[in-house]
């Protein structure tokens, strides 16, 4: 029972850890590159959504429509982070094309394919796959250019790992989220969504580290 309560608390409040990278991004805002500023806007948006969901949770039976909107905005903002951060013009054009196509699909999926009151598993799955490809492309571009000597001090290194880790590790959870909610017992649901929450917290911690290094990088 205590364990269940602990899992539930983590699931309910893990997203508020976004306050950590939000605070650091506000503190270092003047040092942020265009890509990191775009990431900051994503974090501010995430925090706003979290607060609104918590506030209106009691009054709204099913808040999944918010997830549909959140998915689209999240996808656009994180894609723009990569658009600004990758130097290769070829990869930039590819990112822009994929972003456009997938955004259109996310909208079509929410309106015509999947019910707006259920998990948008199709959109989340495709988003996850794209956010596995973009970080790998970013790593590839770093290897090709060899401009960064100290990886651990490079903000986008940490942010890239955060995005790769979160979206890779949640791929199966997002694909099967409707089945998980419908078919798994309450306890098993807690464990699944605890794992999701754990990787969410890890992502925010890695974002915080990356944003922290943005001041050190641009101060010298």
């Amino acid at each position: 029972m205590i364990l269940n309560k602990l899992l539930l608390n983590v699931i309910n409040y893990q997203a508020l850890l976004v306050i950590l990278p939000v605070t650091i991004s506000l503190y270092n805002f003047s040092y942020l590159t265009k890509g990191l500023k775009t990431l900051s806007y994503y974090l501010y948006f995430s925090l706003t959504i979290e607060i609104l969901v918590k506030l209106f949770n009691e009054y709204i039976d099913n808040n999944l429509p918010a997830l549909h909107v959140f998915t689209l905005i999240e996808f656009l903002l994180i894609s723009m982070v990569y658009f600004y951060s990758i130097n290769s013009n070829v990869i930039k054009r590819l990112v822009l094309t994929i972003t456009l196509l997938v955004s259109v699909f996310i909208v079509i999926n929410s309106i015509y394919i999947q019910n707006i009151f259920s998990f948008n598993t199709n959109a989340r799955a495709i988003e996850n796959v794209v956010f596995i490809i973009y970080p790998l492309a970013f790593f590839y571009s770093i290897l090709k250019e060899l401009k960064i000597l100290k990886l651990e001090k490079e903000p986008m290194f940490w942010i890239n790992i955060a995005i790769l880790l979160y979206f890779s590790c949640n791929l199966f959870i997002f694909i099967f989220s409707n089945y998980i909610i419908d078919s798994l017992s309450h306890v098993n649901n807690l464990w699944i969504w605890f794992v999701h929450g754990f990787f969410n917290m890890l992502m925010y911690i890695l974002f915080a580290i990356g944003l922290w290094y943005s001041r050190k990088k641009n101060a010298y």
Partner: protein
Amino acid sequence: MVLTEEERLLIMVLSGTFGMFLLVLGIVIFFITYKKKLIKQQLEMQTLETEHQLKLLQGIIQTQENERKRFAEDLHDEVGAMLSTAKLNIARIERSADKKAAELATETKSMLNSIITNIRRIAKDLLPSTLEKLGFIEAIKELCNSVNKSSIINASFEEVGKYKRQDIKIELALYRVVQELVNNALKHANATEIKIVLKCNSKQIELEINDNGQGFDLEQVKESGLGLRNIESRINMIDGKLDYFSEIDKGTTAKITIDIS
């Protein structure tokens, strides 16, 4: 043991998640290791390239010095000797010729004296024998004396601390740099004063050359100035450090530091 639908779903999701986590970890570790390897290779190549460039540079400068030595010796031994003989012949003509011819001979003798002085100066600039025989301090003092004699600029030299003679390559490089900087001040700076200060201790030699001339835009000259690059090359060859300060109407200062510890 037969698994229920629920158990199968749970195992699939958790093992898929765990598998992805291990995969990401593997990718990140591979990326970090591979990048370190690439950077190391790049640095090794850069070091080899720098060493190669330095060897080429040393070869070029040595060839330059050898050519200067040969040219100075030829000037002194052959041209200088012939001019001295010509001067003797003119003196004989001056003594035995009529008034008009004697006047012409006197004028020619004066021109020859001038040419011989210039030839000696050129030969000395090319091959500073004082440097080899008496050392850097005496060579610089001689350079200052010749500048003071032949121009309106006042060149001074000051020694702070006790200078210990260094390897001829270091002394020659420093002398050539001083020569180049003094020539620059004479030709371009419109200066009235050149100060050369040599500070020595057991760990390093610091040589400062300063003029009170019109200064120049350092960034502009760095792009097009072969002289400055030549100076930098010579200092790099002896593992020295060159700091250059110049501002329009505020003169120019060059500071060379060499670690001798």
